[in-house]
């Protein structure tokens, strides 16, 4: 990669991902030197793996949840003055790094302020029937409550500018933050776009991923907000 991407900061929430996060960070840093990992109180040496791989480490003293970790990472990244574009990325290696560049390109050319990754814009990601059904329901819920025309509302991969980063003051510590991001984008009328992201559902990422029943928890968190 010839052009330097030092104005891009990749934020990764990490919770007990010591086995894979090092490789994810190393692969990312070949293109994006600035990687911020938020260790959300892991007990498995994730912090050391992150530091060894050359990422910036922010460590929660206690486990607070993925939403809280994302907010912490974004806030820390905002203290780095050279950062213009913020990327959120999953630690388990299921996201494809090559997807970041076209997303950042949309921001650089001012076509959007936030770009969402989507599993459903093309057919590359293989998603099981039940998971697909739950995700569809989530998409329907978000569309009717926020009016955003998105095809995938619960994708961990997003790229956004500093104004959006400032606005993403997530209050939902757990997994309901995905919907919270969308409602903030809708309320503040940020210009948004969506690009396809290929998700690799490996045995590892499946074992670490959200059990479908957690969708019930997310729904209740949102209703009781």
């Amino acid at each position: 990669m010839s052009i330097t991407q030092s104005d891009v900061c990749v934020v990764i929430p990490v919770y007990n991902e010591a086995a894979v996060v090092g490789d994810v960070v190393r692969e990312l840093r070949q293109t994006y030197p600035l990687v911020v990992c938020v260790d959300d109180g892991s007990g498995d040496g994730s912090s050391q793996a992150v530091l060894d791989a050359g990422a910036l480490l922010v460590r929660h003293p206690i486990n607070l949840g993925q939403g809280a970790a994302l907010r912490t990472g974004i806030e820390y990244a905002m203290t780095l003055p050279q950062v213009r574009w913020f990327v959120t990325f999953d630690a388990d290696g299921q996201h494809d790094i090559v997807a970041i560049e076209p997303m950042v390109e949309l921001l650089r050319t001012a076509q959007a302020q936030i770009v969402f990754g989507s599993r459903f814009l093309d057919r590359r990601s293989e998603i099981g029937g039940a998971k697909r059904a739950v995700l569809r329901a989530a998409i329907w819920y978000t569309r009717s409550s926020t009016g955003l025309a998105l095809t995938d509302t619960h994708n961990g991969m997003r790229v956004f500018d500093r104004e959006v980063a400032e606005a993403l003051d997530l209050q939902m510590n757990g997994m309901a933050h995905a919907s919270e991001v969308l409602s903030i984008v809708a309320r503040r009328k940020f210009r948004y776009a969506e690009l396809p992201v290929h998700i690799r559902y490996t045995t590892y990422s499946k074992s670490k991923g959200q059990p479908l029943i957690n969708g019930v928890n997310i729904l209740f968190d949102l209703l009781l907000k």
Partner: protein
Amino acid sequence: MLIQVFLIAATLGLVVVLLQRRGTARTRAWKRLIMVALAGAAVVSILYPDLTTRVANFVGVGRGTDLLLYLLVAVFLYVVVGFYLKFRDVERQLTVLARRLAIDEATQRQLGIRVAAAPRASADD
């Protein structure tokens, strides 16, 4: 029956508490007044045991003990919701505090300042 009106009102009140809870000083004052009234009612019902049954009959409940059970359920729900909301507030404050600590530590590490190791997170959750 009158009891049904009371209990439904209590249930709806719960929803109202959930949806809008602002004006802390005023709600605290009300809570205290209700507490005093409850204590008074307790003393009176201890002194005159038949009174609860008479009140129960008046609102459409057979026995005084049944009335107490119904009221207990309603009060219990209020307490649970109250604790839930309080807990969530504390959780938010804790998040802000932990985030501040984490970012400060990261900034200092970046600047090359040695900091005391953060206490290890417990791995039991």
